[in-house]
């Protein structure tokens, strides 16, 4: 048993930390999220030059062939920096599908992903589906050598920036059957694809995406027709593992900032950190953080396990992270008083990101149930 990081992993962490220090202070981030574009293309190019967009891909595919611990390190540091560029969406989620796609698809799509020329987004959620990844109405009907895609996906994170989408669609079966779900690669510029872009609570962007008789060549199918659900679950769990890492990064900053503030802010002639009621709140924040780090390590080390074990690990970790995100976010605002409510301080921005991580790919209730069913 060993929870230490290798020298190479520490080096990776240092690289990201200095990238964030140089490019991502609070004012620069504010500029980025308030711009029309909503992200920085320059930052994305830099991430590519640092090799970070190739972290999980095999060397054959032009990647660094790193494992989940390295992805965890990247996501954690991005969480500390509150990075809005769509690393998890493109590299972890869509990359997760692509690295398991056919040789031909990998050769066609991975080079431009790893080089930073194309951004990818995964369109899975539907208005009626809540967090159930199998509740899919979007249909893809097979007519010989092509498919026709119809229906609506909602809140597709990073879609405004993406050139390519991966879309889950029903090729057979009833609305929430796990059988009959297929994955397609869709060029966003294809006829019949329309998007409605908007900013999100956490400073990122998303789209409502509609497909109207979108013609897809059968070569855009990932894996076998109708058999995509297990792969979706796997990649969703990998994404959850990365989101947990991002969350612990954000939590650590909030905890540090809050402790620092309570040491310096004086009321009643002393630092407010001297008041026991606030000390205990900060101790609880600290414990929630430590528990979250433990669950994040656990899930990232169990991603290679068989389905049930992996899925339990992901759901358990997500429950812990959701609860901690809420407690730490709310407490950090409370302990900062009025200042915690201002847009000017970073506290509210971390709180908002953590609140969105709570919802992404299922909240605590959803994963508690999933965990209990898997046991």
């Amino acid at each position, binding site marked *: 048993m060993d929870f230490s990081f290798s020298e190479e992993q520490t080096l990776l962490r240092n690289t990201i930390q200095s990238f964030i220090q140089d490019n991502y202070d609070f004012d620069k981030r504010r500029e980025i999220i*308030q711009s029309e574009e909503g992200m920085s293309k320059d930052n994305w190019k830099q991430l590519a030059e640092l090799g970070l967009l190739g972290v999980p891909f095999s060397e054959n595919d032009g990647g660094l062939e790193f494992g989940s611990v390295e992805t965890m390190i990247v996501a954690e540091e991005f969480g500390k920096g509150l990075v809005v560029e769509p690393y998890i969406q493109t590299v972890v989620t869509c990359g997760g599908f692509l690295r398991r796609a056919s040789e031909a698809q990998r050769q066609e799509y991975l080079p431009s992903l790893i080089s930073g020329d194309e951004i990818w987004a995964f369109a899975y*959620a539907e*208005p*009626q*589906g*809540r*967090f*159930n990844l199998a*509740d899919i109405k979007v249909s893809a009907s097979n007519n010989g050598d092509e498919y026709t895609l119809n229906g609506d996906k*909602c*809140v597709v*994170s990073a879609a405004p920036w993406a050139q390519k989408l991966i879309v889950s669609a029903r090729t057979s079966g009833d*609305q*929430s059957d796990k059988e009959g779900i297929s994955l397609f690669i869709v060029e966003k510029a294809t006829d019949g694809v329309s998007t*409605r*872009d*908007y*900013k*999100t*609570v*956490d400073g990122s962007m*998303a789209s*409502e995406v509609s497909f109207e008789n979108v013609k897809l060549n059968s070569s855009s199918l990932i894996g076998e027709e109708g058999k995509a659900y297990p792969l979706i679950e796997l990649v969703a769990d990998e994404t959850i593992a990365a989101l947990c890492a991002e969350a612990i990064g954000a939590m650590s900053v909030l905890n540090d900032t809050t402790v620092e503030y309570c040491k310096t802010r*004086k*009321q*009643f002639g002393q630092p*407010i950190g001297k*008041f026991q*009621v*606030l000390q205990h709140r900060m101790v609880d924040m600290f414990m929630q953080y430590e528990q979250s780090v433990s669950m994040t390590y656990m899930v990232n080390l169990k991603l290679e396990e068989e389905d049930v074990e992996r899925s339990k690990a992901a759901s358990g970790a997500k429950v812990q992270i959701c609860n901690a995100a*809420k407690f730490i976010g*709310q407490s950090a*605002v*409370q302990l900062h*008083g*009025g200042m*915690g*409510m*201002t*847009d*000017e301080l970073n506290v*509210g*921005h971390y*709180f*908002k990101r953590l*609140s*969105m991580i709570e*919802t992404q790919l299922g*909240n605590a*209730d959803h994963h*508690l*149930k999933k965990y209990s069913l898997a046991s």
Partner: protein
Amino acid sequence: MDLNFTKADQEFRNEVREFIAENFSSENNSGQNIEKYHEVTSDEMKEGILSWHKTLYKKGWIAPHWPVEYGGVDWSITQRYIWDQECANAGTTPLIPFGLTMLGPVIIAFGNDHQKDWVLKGILSGDDWWCQGYSEPGAGSDLASLRTKAERDGDHYVVNGHKIWTTLAQYADWMFCLVRTSNEGKPQEGISFLLIDMNTPGIEVKPIITVDGGHEVNEVFLEDVRVPVENLVGEENMGWTIAKFLLGNERTGIAGVARSKKAIDRLKDIANSELNNGEPLMKDSSFNKKITELEVDLTALEYTELRTLAKESQGQGPGVESSILKIKGTEIQQKISELTLEAIGNYASPYITPLSVRNFGSNYLEVGPEHTQGVAQNYFGMRKTSIYGGSNEIQRNIIAKMVLGL
């Protein structure tokens, strides 16, 4: 002890319900309507917020909790309770509390005849918009450490200092303000209560944008602001007594029971229309349990508030009970906003704020079902309720000290 409504109470309910139906339309509720928000000017906004106020003023119902001789209404606590409920059910524009709830009772208790005349008139008619100059950057929970200074110069006080978290100061005509008039003795002993005309030279109001993207609070800078001595309320250096009296009133209003009930109804409607594995979310046992617990908690608060009001109507209070109302009221409001955010699932994410609407135009309107609009902003915005009006930590200290004698 009796929980039933009399026939007269029922008739009263019908009367106010009819009145609201005939006189309130959500059209003039522009402060609540984001679509209008980016189109209206600040003056129109103020007018929109005041329009319901003026309707009630005309009817004579604007200040039910004031003594009749000062323009109040002779309603029993049951009638006031019914009135609050009916207003919440109809979703009427919330009245701005600074004049009606906070300053009005202070002037009635501590003001001189001249002040009782002009201040109360302006509050009742809505012609004077008041804001509250209490907190300072260095004086939040520890309000008594405030440093904004007022020095006597002939018939004037000259005020210098810096107030913060001043709600809706951008619309205010007047500010009631705590200032330091003496450094002798305990900090509480050198504070005075001044009424300051916001048009006086030397006052600058600077907006603070909050995490929900809104502009509600401000900083107010005061530089050599000359305030006539006649605008002192009560005696010099007795401001702390007045401030405590006022905060007690502020806390009573803060419980917001009727509006929380309405918000829970809305939450249930949302949970009935959101689907979870093909079934309404409301049928999900764990979500259902959370709403039910909240409802029970709110019922307890409702009866605690009624007991407080009953005591008040017998001339006692509002005392430290108001701290219970503040803590429970705000915790419940926050929990409702939290569960509402939870209910809308993936649609928690789209973010449409007055500012983003202004900056990016109409393309940013209406993503997702209507009931998801503004839910995230509301969740973030509600975090302030456990901070303002004396943080909930301070309220617990008050109960520990004043009630439990710890």
